């Protein structure tokens, strides 16, 4: 039987790794589905974004400790890798916000269903297509940059391995 270990180090109030791994899997699958409207149809593409947005926000919020650590001003002597990830993740965040926002502004399904005409313009349509396609490359790089974390933790999706 495992005994005292948890008592020695009280767990910080932080999402378990297991929750985060599951959330990341949902984020990944959701992202792939969202990036292929030609396969899912525009209606799914638009309505599913509403499910995707909270998953995306949680992906950042559940790793807030990382965000705080990495953006702390006083500590600028970071490894090249951390600095790269920091800059890269900002670009990725901007891209995600832009693709979601521009998506609503070219909506053909969800907004019209609610009687709203988004007044789509060529600007926002071009922005949506360009950011949507560019993001696929960026997300691919993002996943590769975090591969050590993924390898370390993927096994934890099974309940009896969740401890840490």
């Amino acid at each position, binding site marked *: 039987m495992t005994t005292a270990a948890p008592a020695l180090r009280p767990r910080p*109030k932080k999402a378990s790794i297991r929750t985060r791994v599951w959330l990341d899997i949902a984020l990944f699958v959701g992202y*792939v*589905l969202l*990036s*292929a*409207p*030609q*396969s*899912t*149809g*525009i209606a799914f593409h638009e309505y599913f974004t509403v499910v995707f947005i909270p998953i995306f*926000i949680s992906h*950042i*919020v559940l790793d*807030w400790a990382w*965000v705080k650590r990495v953006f702390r001003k006083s500590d600028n002597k970071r490894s090249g890798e951390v600095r790269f990830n920091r800059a890269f993740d900002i670009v990725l*965040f*901007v891209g995600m*916000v*832009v693709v979601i*926002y*521009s998506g609503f502004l*070219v909506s*053909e399904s969800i907004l019209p269903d609610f009687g709203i005409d988004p*007044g*789509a*313009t*060529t*600007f*926002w*349509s071009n*922005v949506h297509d360009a950011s949507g*396609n560019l993001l*696929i*490359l*960026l*997300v*691919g*790089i993002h*996943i*590769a*940059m975090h*591969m050590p974390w993924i390898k370390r933790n993927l096994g934890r999706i099974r309940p009896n391995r969740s401890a840490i």
Partner: protein
Amino acid sequence: MNAWLGRNASPIAIVLLASAVVIGAWEVLDAFATSEPLGTPEGDAPLNPGGLIKVTLFLLVPSLITLAIRRRQRSH
């Protein structure tokens, strides 16, 4: 759920605020860009499952290139 939202209120607020800043910046760009109404949408073309394969490949290729570069750097 509500407890979770309460506990994470400030990170969520910061994420939303940062999103608003990004959106504001793009609205400024829009104000300067030449743009025309898009016209009526064409609707869905016949669904093509190959799109999912395309996305997966487009994710995989940059991932593999990044992993290869990381591995080289590590071995130095």
